[in-house]
């Protein structure tokens, strides 16, 4: 349990909120009782928002792998949606506990913004992969490549270090300086920082939405879709070494 009163308050409100929401879900048919519960739920949400907003400076607590001191006076700004699951009923998903987290993106922290990124031995696309980093993985910059003429040919690559201490290269287009917020087992991270600095994984168009679309003839042109073929296409994998050979054989620039 945290000794931080701000965090403790957040957690307490979250727990109350979850309890109220479960009560609402369990209740039958619209009643005054449910209306009252919903009002309490909303009030708790507001209380939590205000509590976090007012308590932010100096109270942010690193959690869930995103750590570090953030800029002074940073603002609380976003909530996260869970990473999408196969379940289409989001209302059944557990409410998320809320832990303020400060972004330290200014201190050379980056997040993987694609489904999986290869940490490569060299700053080349078809260099052997040292490790596969999943969406939302936090890495720290070791040095910036391509910042001077001597390493201009490496522009676009960043040497990074994983939480496990492994160093390698990732292409910049696989990274973002914004914080990728992915729900862990039961936590949600609130991130401080400037506006537009958060990527909410699994929000919006997701596998849940795709599932509904796939199963709704009214939406998909009466089944004029072939996701199985798309899955097959996506399953095609070519080893980096084979691409390297292909390029050499064809006389491509290496």
């Amino acid at each position: 349990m945290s000794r931080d009163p701000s965090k403790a308050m957040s957690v307490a409100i979250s727990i109350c909120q979850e309890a109220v929401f479960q009560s609402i879900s369990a209740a039958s048919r619209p009643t005054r009782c449910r209306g009252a519960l919903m009002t309490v739920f909303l009030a708790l949400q507001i209380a939590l928002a205000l509590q976090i907003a007012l308590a932010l400076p100096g109270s942010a607590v690193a959690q869930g792998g995103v750590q570090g001191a953030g800029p002074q006076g940073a603002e609380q700004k976003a909530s996260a949606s869970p990473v999408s699951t196969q379940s289409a009923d989001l209302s059944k998903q557990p409410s998320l506990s809320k832990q303020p987290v400060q972004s330290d993106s200014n201190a050379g922290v980056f997040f993987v913004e694609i489904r999986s990124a290869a940490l490569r031995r060299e700053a080349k696309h078809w260099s052997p992969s040292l490790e596969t980093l999943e969406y939302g993985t936090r890495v720290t910059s070791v040095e910036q490549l391509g910042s001077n003429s001597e390493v201009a040919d490496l522009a676009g690559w960043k040497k990074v270090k994983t939480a496990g201490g492994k160093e390698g290269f990732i292409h910049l287009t696989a990274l973002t300086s914004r914080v990728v917020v992915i729900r862990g087992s039961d936590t949600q991270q609130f991130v401080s920082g400037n506006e537009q600095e958060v990527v909410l994984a699994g929000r919006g168009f997701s596998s849940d939405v795709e599932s509904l679309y796939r199963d709704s003839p009214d939406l998909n042109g009466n089944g004029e879709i072939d996701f199985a073929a798309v899955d097959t296409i996506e399953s095609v994998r070519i080893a980096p070494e084979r691409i390297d050979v292909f390029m050499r054989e064809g006389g491509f620039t290496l």
Partner: protein
Amino acid sequence: MRRVAVRWFGCLVASVGLNGCALFNSGGEQTAPQQSGSEAVSDASSATSDGDGNIFSSFGESVLDFFGVTPPVKEFAQSEAIVEATNTLSREEEYYLGRAVAARVIAKYGIVSSPELTDYLTKLGLSLVSFSEKPETFGGYHFAVIDTDSFNAVSAPGGFIFVSRGLLEGIADEDELSAVLAHEISHVTQQHGIRSISQDRMQGVLEAAGLLVGSVSCNVVLQQAALVFGATVDEIVDNLLEKGYSREFEFEADRGATMLLVKAGLGTEGLKGVFLVLQSTESGAGGWFSTHPSSSERQEVLGSALDLERAPSMSALQHKAQRLARFNTALAALPASRS
């Protein structure tokens, strides 16, 4: 500080309010609205403010009043907060849109099943991708042959790239195929699929995404998002296969292809070769002929860049025979046309 609190509060109000529309609709069943795709956007947009949900008119209204939230702030909570929280499509969302567009394209044309040919096409495509300005997309780049005799190539958002059987049979060598792929890769990197979505639709897309931000959601919200998703996929597919992208996008893709091919060391001979093929058969119907500007106009727009950058690198020149040989080997694996 207050602004942030209000913004965050707005997202919560939206999610809780919509949840309320499912839970508190007086006497009504919790059913998803049945609309056509074209109606989806306006419906999704209105879902935050009015309609049967009446989010702010029942319990929500009283709660807001209780906390002294005035109408202008309510409006802010409904619109600005949501839109600002999700002001752009994420790469993940672009990927899911692309998957659905690809599923529609495949359903229309079918896929040529040839592991050898797919392997070759993927190796060539990925080689070229490494010279692009965006070599990493959320789900990666994928390549396949669609089973149509028309001369065509299309790309779906996120990196799904298709070339037609007719195109493969109509071009001369790997350099021309590289030019076609480079053009399609440029469409992907410049997000032409997403950018071709109309402004009104995009507003609905962003709002639908915003509704799913909150920690509490419901099936009604998800249904609304799926409606918007379907309508957006319809629009992209229509732009891709029927209307074609704008001329501006096509010229952008040509310029991007030129740069990519030059970086790869291949020069622009392949691109010029494709233009010649198009010129000689421009009376043909469908595919690239109907969705792209004329090849002469495209060459004119590219202008001197096409000539100045035409020469391949020494290495590429020395390996031209190898490229042609493997192209011919791959094409030999193309199954006979069903028609």
